[in-house]
């Protein structure tokens, strides 16, 4: 078996006796085989990796919601007018004399300014589509950026 034939067999993960015999005799192919085994393991381990997730929101202009909002505004206006027209009875109240007492104030300890760590705001991407009723918002969770490779 030649090295070229061995490479093809290794690429196909064949485990024939000829391949094994060649690997025993050929150091270069033996190294290549070890490399391929390690690569296969590394590639397989990539399968389970997680990356920053995408958040997608599809927004559609909602006509019924708009009508409901308009109705709510109209209702609020009429209700406001109705309340304004009502006459309220006069309210009598008296204030009791108040006593003020000033106590000595102990000097407060020096305030140490705390450094605020502001969380990364999610990145929002707006995408218009050919459908005028569909707008896609991509919200990328930047908190998980650190997980990226």
């Amino acid at each position: 078996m030649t090295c070229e034939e061995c490479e093809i067999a290794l690429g196909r993960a064949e485990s024939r006796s000829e391949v094994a015999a060649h690997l025993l005799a050929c150091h270069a192919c033996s190294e290549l085989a070890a490399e391929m085994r390690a690569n296969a393991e590394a590639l397989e381990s990539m399968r389970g990796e997680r990356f920053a997730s995408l958040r997608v929101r599809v927004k559609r202009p909602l006509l019924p919601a708009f009508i409901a909002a308009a109705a709510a505004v109209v209702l609020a206006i009429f209700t406001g007018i109705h309340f304004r027209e009502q006459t309220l009875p006069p309210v009598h109240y008296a204030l009791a004399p108040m006593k003020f007492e000033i106590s000595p104030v102990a000097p407060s300890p020096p305030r140490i300014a705390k450094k605020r760590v502001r969380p990364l705001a999610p990145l929002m991407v707006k995408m218009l589509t050919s459908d005028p009723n569909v707008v896609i918002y991509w919200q990328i969770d930047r908190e998980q950026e650190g997980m990226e490779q």
Partner: protein
Amino acid sequence: MLAIVARSNPRDREFERVMRDHERMVVNTAYRLLGRMEDARDAAQEVFLRLLKNLNRIEGDPKPWLYRVTVNVCNDHYRRRLPVKEPDARRADPTPDASRILEMGDRKRLLMEALATLSPRERAAIVLRDIEGLSTREVAGILGIEEVTVRSQISVARVKLAKFVRGRK
């Protein structure tokens, strides 16, 4: 994680479900094919936009369709992309490292570099077969080629990857 504002539309709910179930798969595959997370996100966006447009036409499991579109979108993306700077020639020289044993993280990084050196078809075949863990038949179906061709491409790609990594150690 995703949310659809207009939940009254069953099509949107279906889109949400398909996206929730396959988002990770699409982003991961795109990342392996393109090598950059920014590009992978752009590609995933394109894939899901196409999903939104074609949702009614997809019958059964949308996974093969999503894989196929992801590969196509990534290939288009790859072609449009500005040429990536050639790897530093000095790094190609094998360093006289006594152990010659790579840590897993270093190996993965090298493999990501090595994937970029493959042809688009080889790259797609190896990503789907060896990273995504699909069968040869599934890969052939997604790429629209014969199984024997997939086997050949994967075999060649595995040898290329191994030689690339060995050359960089």
